[in-house]
């Protein structure tokens, strides 16, 4: 259902985010190596897009550029029709749990981006997002006292607390054990269904992509292009043993497998 809705929006209205002939190259030892080559993508408002691709192909580079931490060598990233030229609190980048501030408590971390709000509103959001990610009882705890999964949820809560309309997640669950990873996926979907932010989610786990995304963008090896975009037309909650799920998953594997063979 969600998929159909976003598709309509993506076709008719202006996309939330678009990249236009985006190219990024890094200079190293006097040579410039292209990493991203002519990336053209359009992401609809409220869409959940997963990006998969071989290791080192430039997924993190793409995400950093979209978030405004890197400037494109040529081409542009546009959000709401405006060219991105720096990070912005309206779109938050979430790192693999490493981004939480160890010198602040759980509350302090969530409060970090709320400095421009009045005190009462700050309290309200802290309470709301602690509850949303299930960290009640740990308000005064420091990150060193939390597990990896709890830190990850804390970082997501800190990002959501500023009410961003976009989230960039770079392999957010990569360092978690497989059980925690599954629960975190469920949590993220639940949060996304409640908040309806536009999410761009990088992963190298094809199953993860097919479980979460409205669409999956498959990247080729370096210099990376978008090799294909796969629409995941399955309603949530998704049955991971259904034929349509397996078919989509194998299709993406095949696309990636071909990319490896060249």
């Amino acid at each position, binding site marked *: 259902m969600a998929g159909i809705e976003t598709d309509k929006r993506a076709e008719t209205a202006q996309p939330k985010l678009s990249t236009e002939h985006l190219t990024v190259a890094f200079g190293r030892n006097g040579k410039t190596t292209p990493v991203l080559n002519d990336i053209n993508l359009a992401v609809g408002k409220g869409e959940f897009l997963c990006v998969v691709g071989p290791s080192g192909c430039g997924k993190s580079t793409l995400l950093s550029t979209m*978030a405004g*931490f890197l400037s494109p060598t040529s081409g542009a990233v546009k959000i709401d029709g405006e060219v991105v030229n720096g*990070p*912005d*609190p309206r779109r*938050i*980048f979430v*790192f693999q749990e*490493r*981004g939480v*501030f*160890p*010198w*602040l408590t759980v509350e302090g971390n969530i409060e*970090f*981006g709320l*400095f*421009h709000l009045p005190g009462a509103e700050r309290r309200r959001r802290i309470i709301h997002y602690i509850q949303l990610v299930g960290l009640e009882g740990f308000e005064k705890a*420091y*990150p*060193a006292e939390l597990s990896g999964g709890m830190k990850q949820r804390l970082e997501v809560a800190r990002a959501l607390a*500023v009410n961003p309309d976009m989230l960039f997640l770079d392999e957010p669950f990569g360092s978690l054990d497989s059980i925690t990873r599954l629960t975190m996926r469920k949590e993220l979907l639940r949060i996304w269904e409640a908040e309806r932010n536009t999410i761009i989610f990088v992963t190298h786990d094809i199953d993860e992509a097919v479980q979460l995304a409205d669409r999956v963008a498959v990247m080729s090896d370096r210099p990376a292009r978008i090799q294909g975009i796969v629409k995941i037309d399955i309603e949530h909650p998704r049955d991971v043993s259904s034929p349509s799920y397996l078919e989509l998953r194998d299709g993406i594997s095949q696309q990636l497998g071909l990319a490896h063979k060249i």
Partner: protein
Amino acid sequence: MNSLAEPRKWERVFWPVLASIAFLALWHFCVIWSHTKVFPSPLAVEKGMLELARKGLLLRYIADSLRRVALGFGAAAVLGIPVGLTLGWYPAANQVVNPVLQMLRPISPLAWIPVAIVFFGVGDTTAVFLIFLSAFFPIVVACVSGVSNVPSVYRRAGRNFGLNPAQLLARVVFPAALPQIIIGLRIALGIAWLVVVAAEMIAVDSGLGYLVIDARNSGKRYDLVVAAMLLIGVIGLALDLCFRRLRNIRSVRWGFRNEW
């Protein structure tokens, strides 16, 4: 003993006390067996200390030494932390200043004594200045490396939430570097305490360093010399223990291993 097991509370006090008693006993018997006329026994030192206390000199000298350290070390921290943070924050500035810093740093504060005397005369200011110098460089260096070691994810996250550079420095870079800064301050305090004793031997007429020199020069009172030495050691230890408590502050605890 299992080295992984946490020592029990009484053990943590008991063994050091036992070692201290053993040390005093060894010292006592060495003095007796060697029939030395110069080196005092622990009991003679204790008598000497009581004599100083009776004259009111003991507390005055301790207070004078501590006051000089507090002034010199305090000034070094007040000046050194902002300088170090600035240099760490602007790598270009650091590249310009770093060679000069690295050249000044290995010069022992004692080598500054003649210069300091020319500037400030023989007196308190000279001693405080030498302590300041000795503590300033380690503090600056610790701040610079603390700031440049702040993981880039923290800066990025700070920028992402819309912090301007001043806010980023105050709310991200400083707290992230604080554990390293505290380590630098602790090292600097240790050096400052070494230097106050040396400075007092030359530049002033009070303090524990002065006591060492004065007791020797006026009547070869080696009991007082050793008494002063012991006090210097015990007070240095106490200062360090106080400083180590800082790591228990919860917002910096993350930056320390169990031992430091």
